[in-house]
């Protein structure tokens, strides 16, 4: 077990190095433009070259990357070109904001989707059709429109919650809850639509299996057949979908963050990229990749616990 | 009688499942022969390796050692091109008539496939299809229909027709009647016997069912956990076997007669308690 986790973590680290290397190489052609932007109207070929030398961008790419990597493995991701803030602190802070929204959304997604999916699969008929219609509607409307309409209805029209801005959980839990309310709902609609369809589908398949009939002939109560047995077997595929949704949300929250003026991970990445703040861009990539690696490992471990046949350790 | 097929000390292993697992040996040195026009029945229970023998002959599984000779030629490890040429001589009928036919192709397409692969012109292949359908007792218009329009027994007839198409000299029959109903089973077996009498094709007939093997085989080989334990003429091997495993197998197969079955059961239990 420990060996398995260690092996996965090592291969995850290798992936992370690969991803940062590729990102770095993809960014390399735009170094001139980035430096030029920074210099603004003062940019001439000479000043650009001078600036590049000053920033170390004129060295061979391999040297630059290895230099960055050797600092990165020691936890030093450098400082922002523009603000001079240590990259690690800045990214961690913004990531915290996004995670507080995304994690709440995910938890609600699980609760709502499992309830709706199980209900649709086990009751059938009208309930099922209603759930299907609901899930389809969630699919149909682009996220962007949902966010804007929600802002308009809840914040601008009825002034129930603040339209924009973010208060951190540590500062004021009540205000935090208010400030993330619309963003969470906006993200929730699409993710619930996706997961509900998944849970419904696999639950239907599970409930048709032989062991369900067997349990019923033993006099096991329906509730236990559905929730204890069928749901457990349906949970694996649903969890995988959930992990995809999580990864998608990390970046997908960007639009929501912009609409609601929330200083999150996505919008921070966006601003840094527009400015060409390479240390920040690289830092964001590192954090994002490590999150993906950890999430995938967690999903595999939980799947192994759920499904004894899939246990690889 | 010359042997058409000669299998010598065949061993086969599958890579072990999981990380750093040792490979599992399925066949521990199996030797058998099939003569021209003969049926060799291979009987065994699940895990005996009987299906693996068939797959090795067909090139669907790679032997780890030993040799397979067909018509005097070594075909143990032939290349892809040579293997395709062998399709003219060695064919197969699988157990499951539902998954052995591509559901999206018409019966006609399924039957012309081996012919066209052998370079038969399309027109000639089509005439041949009518001939094949007639031979396995299917209506002529079957060629335009899809597999799902046919029952299990009829599909198995299609599979037989496909195997016959290139006029092979050996057909590997892997449990061809196990998925069929009792009455259909007998009819399909009789069709196979009839075809053999007319064309002189040899069968390697793999089955778990002693009664079926007894019905169609000239000789029978009994396989137990990757080893051949007994080989000989069908009658003696399947009714008065010498090896204890074959004896156990014969006594365990129930007969459709309450009185005889009760006698057999007593005998089986006696044998079992003696063994302890």
């Amino acid at each position, binding site marked *: 077990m420990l060996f398995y986790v260690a092996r996965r973590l090592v291969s995850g680290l290798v992936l992370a190095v690969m991803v940062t290397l590729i990102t770095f190489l993809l960014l390399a052609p735009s170094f001139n433009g980035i430096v030029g932007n920074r210099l603004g109207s003062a940019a001439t070929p000479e000043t650009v070259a001078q600036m590049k030398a000053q920033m170390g961008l004129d060295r061979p790419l391999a040297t630059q990357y290895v230099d960055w990597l050797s600092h990165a493995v020691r936890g030093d991701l450098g400082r922002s070109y523009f603000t001079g803030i240590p990259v690690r602190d800045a990214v961690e802070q913004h990531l915290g904001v996004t995670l507080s929204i995304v994690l709440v959304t995910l938890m609600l997604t699980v609760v709502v989707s499992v309830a709706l999916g199980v209900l649709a699969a086990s009751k059938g008929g009208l309930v099922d059709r209603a759930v299907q219609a609901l899930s389809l509607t969630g699919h149909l409307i682009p996220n962007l429109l949902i966010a804007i309409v929600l802002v308009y209805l809840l914040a601008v029209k009825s002034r129930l919650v603040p339209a924009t801005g973010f208060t951190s959980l540590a500062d004021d839990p009540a205000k935090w809850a208010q400030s993330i309310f619309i963003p969470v709902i906006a993200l929730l609609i699409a993710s619930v639509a996706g997961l509900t369809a998944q849970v419904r589908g696999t639950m239907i398949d599970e409930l048709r299996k032989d062991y369900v009939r067997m349990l019923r002939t033993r*006099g096991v109560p329906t509730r236990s057949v559905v929730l204890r*047995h069928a749901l457990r077997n349906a949970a694996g595929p649903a969890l995988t979908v959930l992990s995809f949704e999580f990864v998608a949300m990390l970046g997908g929250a960007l639009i929501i963050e912009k609409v609601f003026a929330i200083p999150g991970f996505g919008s921070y990445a966006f601003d840094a990229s527009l400015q060409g703040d390479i240390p920040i861009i690289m830092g964001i990539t590192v954090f994002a990749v490590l999150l993906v690696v950890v999430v995938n490992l967690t999903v595999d471990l939980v799947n192994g616990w759920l499904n004894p046949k899939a246990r690889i350790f | 009688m010359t042997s058409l097929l000669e299998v010598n000390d065949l061993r086969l292993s599958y890579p072990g499942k999981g990380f750093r697992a040792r490979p599992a040996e399925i066949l521990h040195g199996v030797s058998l022969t099939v003569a021209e026009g003969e049926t060799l029945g291979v009987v065994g229970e699940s895990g005996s390796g009987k299906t693996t023998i068939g797959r090795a002959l067909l090139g669907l599984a790679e032997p780890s050692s030993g040799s397979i000779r067909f018509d005097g030629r070594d075909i143990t490890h032939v290349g892809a091109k040579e293997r395709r040429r062998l399709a003219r001589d060695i064919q197969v009928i699988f157990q499951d008539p539902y998954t052995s036919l591509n559901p999206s192709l018409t019966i006609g397409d399924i039957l012309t496939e081996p012919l066209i692969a052998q370079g038969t012109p399309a027109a000639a292949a089509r005439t041949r299809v009518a001939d094949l359908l007639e031979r396995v007792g299917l209506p002529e218009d079957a060629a335009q229909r899809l597999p799902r329009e046919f029952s299990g027994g009829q599909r198995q007839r299609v599979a037989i027709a496909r195997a016959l198409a290139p006029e092979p000299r050996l057909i590997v029959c892997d449990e061809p009647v196990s998925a069929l109903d009792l009455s259909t089973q007998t009819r399909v077996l009789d069709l196979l016997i009839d075809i053999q009498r007319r064309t*002189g094709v040899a069968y390697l007939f793999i089955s778990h069912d002693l009664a079926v093997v007894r019905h169609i085989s000239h000789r029978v080989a009994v396989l137990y956990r990757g080893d051949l334990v007994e080989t000989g003429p069908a009658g003696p091997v399947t009714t008065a076997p010498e090896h204890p495993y074959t004896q156990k197998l014969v006594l365990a197969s129930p007969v459709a007669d309450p009185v005889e079955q009760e006698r057999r059961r007593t005998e089986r239990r006696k044998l079992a308690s003696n063994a302890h």
Partner: protein
Amino acid sequence: MTAQAPAPRRRRSLAGRLLRDPQAVAAASVLLIIVVLGLIGPLLTSHGPNEASLDSINADPGTPGYLLGGDRSGQDILARLLASINTSVVSALIGTSIALLVGVSAGLVGGYYDRIRGGAEWLFSLIMTFPGLLLLIVLLPLTKGDFKVTMVIFGVLLSPGVYRLTRNLVVGVKNELFVDAARVSGLSDPRILRRHVLFAVRGPVIIATAFLAGASIGVQSGLSFLGVGPATTPSFGAMIAGGFAELYTEPLQFVWPSLMLGMMTASLVLFGNALRDALEGATRKPVKIKPVRPEPRTTGDAPAGLLVVEDLAIAYPTPSGELREVVSGVSLSLDAGETLGLVGESGSGKTQTAFAILRVLPAEAVVTRGSIRLDGREILGLKEKDMRALRGRSIAYVPQEPMSNLDPSFTVGDQLVEGLRAAKGLSRKEARAQALALLERVGIAEPERTFRCYPHQISGGMAQRVLIAGAVASRPVLLIADEPTTALDVTVQAEILDLLRDLQKELGMALLLVTHNFGVVADICDRISVMREGQIVETGTALEVFREPAHPYTRMLLDCVLDENTVRTDPPPASVPAHAEEEQR
């Protein structure tokens, strides 16, 4: 299930099936109209999409030359709207085709050739580690916001999904027997891929395409909403952002692009769903765990017996909506301690009859008439709660496939304990002790170890013993065994039959044995009922039926049994040269 071939059905083409689906027709029409509008846009408007004039800033809808008015830069809203369609369509085309090209080709090759798969897996897991949309943002310095370049990258990011879909389908179809048969027929690999593998991949990939297109459009408009890309590229996202800023004064400027974007994505999703229905058949419908409730019919002078089934009929709805009977008027009775064999070929309705007695028929099944009484008590129409009490204590069931009847996620012991507690209300500790005793009773050598095993860790024969242990745990008066030995080896079959016989004697229970195997019947049954096409054609004692079958169908079946006397006697026709007969013809 049914032995007879279904009536020949003409194959209808995919297009034909889609045309009959109103949802598909509506969604496709909307899409088509939008795309055409985008293409003929320049003909419909008098201004170019980037043409701005100070006079027309926020011009009212209906202003001459500005049908939908002007925006805050003085550009024609209609012209920009129609040009934005083209941007969306091009985005969808680029994103989708890159994703399909990369994903499908890698999936075909990686799925078919085991040796290449490892490398392909690694490559795509690398791509999947790139955090989606975030990468598009991070690479802004590279793409400079150009939507075509962005969509190429997005297509690559979408490709792992397509790869996995294709690879799974290919691996699935590759192990089908018909691919083995094609290989044995002498087909080359490229030919097998083209002829047999591609057809399996086609459907799901077409469905995925609709959703990929939707995703591409969504991402493109999302990015342009944020202001990525030059202002000269007309896009719904940029228009929505502009309209959002003027939401209070000119709400319509927000409505038009939103409506158009919403219509495009919605019709893509709806069209994708319609495609799925057309390609994969009707959508899965859930099974209700709900009792069947027929009209119980009690006749005056009921025959006595432990189990009495009278005139039972079961029907299933056909696609056309009518009911088709699979069991029509079955009557049988079973005394305490007796064994009745219900014999028949596939499709005869024997399993359906057994399920009806247990009341576990599939939800769509309808019991149209009849009565089933256990110990004089009518079972049909009984409340699910009362039925559950009955199932746990009086009736028990042993299935055909031991493996699929155990929940793969729970240990053998857990499942036995749960059944025991449900039926007898025992404490966990008592139930555990009883379960272990039962495992020992059914002949499992190491009960403690098996108790802790998961189903996939034990053999089929062991699994069947476990299921028998669970069935007899509550000392039922009636045990229904549905082909209990069909999936097992002959030697194991003999042991399981012995076990059933011993347990029956020990507990004095009645046994209803459903089987197609006359040998099994001869071994264990006191009486036999022969079923054919939903009806019982003959009932009698085992000896009677075997020695003097009354019905021609029974006689025919018994004639088909291969016994010891059917040994092949003719010599191999080796003297006939292999192809001699062919040449004579």
